[in-house]
């Protein structure tokens, strides 16, 4: 088949070019595409066409403007006309919000979340158990300045692990970075992870987030309180 009259992508790699240009491929697939582009000049030429399309699609969409204030006014008029929620009010605690979410989960999601929670608990068991053992085995008391295992004390992030991360990856990540999961899974597969035993200045915490974000085990990470 001639490359100028093809009716289907020549390869799986070629089919992925649009996503590669948009930066929405996994690292593994992105690397496969990069390797293929280095090897195949014809593929590289096609990739340039994809990049042109990408640029002009963005240009086209960006010239579409934005909705008028009427849309927002209409929306919030309708929201104000809605009956009051029966669940927790705004400003309710994390526990209340989480309870509302867990109550709305389907059995399948609950099963999945449960499986992930078991993994997290197993991972934490060694870490927190070890920490507790060390703290309590040295003489039966702790000073006021000793590191706290109180889940409410310290510096925290919200983390979602990458879908392809194995339990070994997660274990290694937590261990290497001296982290512990203190809550989760929350909606969206998020975990609250302690990154420091004491509260950190915002800038320091942002640096920690930036560093941890580089790890392939991480899907999403954000600072939290």
């Amino acid at each position, binding site marked *: 088949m001639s490359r100028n009259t093809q009716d289907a*992508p020549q390869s799986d790699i070629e089919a992925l070019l649009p996503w590669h240009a948009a930066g929405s491929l996994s690292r593994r697939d992105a690397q496969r595409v990069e390797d293929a582009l280095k090897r195949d000049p014809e593929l590289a030429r096609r990739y340039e066409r994809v990049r042109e399309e990408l640029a002009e699609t963005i240009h086209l969409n960006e010239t579409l403007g934005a909705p008028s204030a009427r*849309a927002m006014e209409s929306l919030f008029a309708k929201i104000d006309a809605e009956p009051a929620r029966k669940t927790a009010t705004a400003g309710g605690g994390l526990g209340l919000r989480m309870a509302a979410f867990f109550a709305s989960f389907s059995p399948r999601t609950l099963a999945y979340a449960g499986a992930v929670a078991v993994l997290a608990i197993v991972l934490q068991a060694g870490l927190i158990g070890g920490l507790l053992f060390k703290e309590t085995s040295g003489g039966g008391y702790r000073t006021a300045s000793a590191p706290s295992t109180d889940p409410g004390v310290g510096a925290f992030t919200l983390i979602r692990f990458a879908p392809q991360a194995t339990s070994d990856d997660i274990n290694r990540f937590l261990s290497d970075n001296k982290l512990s999961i203190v809550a989760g899974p929350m909606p969206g597969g998020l975990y609250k992870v302690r990154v420091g035993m004491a509260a950190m200045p915002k800038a320091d915490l942002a640096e920690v987030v930036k560093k941890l974000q580089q790890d392939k085990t991480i899907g999403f990470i954000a600072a939290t309180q």
Partner: protein
Amino acid sequence: MQTSSDEVLIARIASGDRLAMQVLYARHHVRVYRFVLRLVRNEATAEDLISEVFLDVWRQAGKFEGRSAVSTWMLSIARFKALSALRRKPEDELDDEAAEAIEDHADDPEVTLAKKDKGSALRQCLAGLSVEHREVVDLVYYHEKSVEEVAKIVGIPEATVKTRMFYARKRLSELLKQHGIDRGWP
């Protein structure tokens, strides 16, 4: 990073937090509007629809299970509403608009100028794609959705997403050729 905080916002919206709804709206309404506008091609209709989309988000936040990003979920709702609106529109109105998008420029004696401005020609041709092709191109290129996310939004298998994108690009090349620009493919 934003995806995580979107989920936090949805949790707050589920508990009736109006301010969280304002934040989510401010963050996403322009992109949702543009996605809808590209499908329905009518600004007033697109404005009405995004109001409906975000009202659904307000009502259904408690049912959001986090299986996809919040933006993916919202685009799914937007797509459903846009296609429903298109189905309600009179057939002749749709045909007129679709024809306008392509022929206005194709019949223009200045069409040869398009050769000098490939970008402009590309944009004209992107506007001339079918709804099915427009949405996949926009989702991939503008909304930066992965194969899996496009599959969820459009409700088709991942393999179909790839082939649909391929045929959308192929159609784009055909339209460009009609505009006097031969990209050598298909």
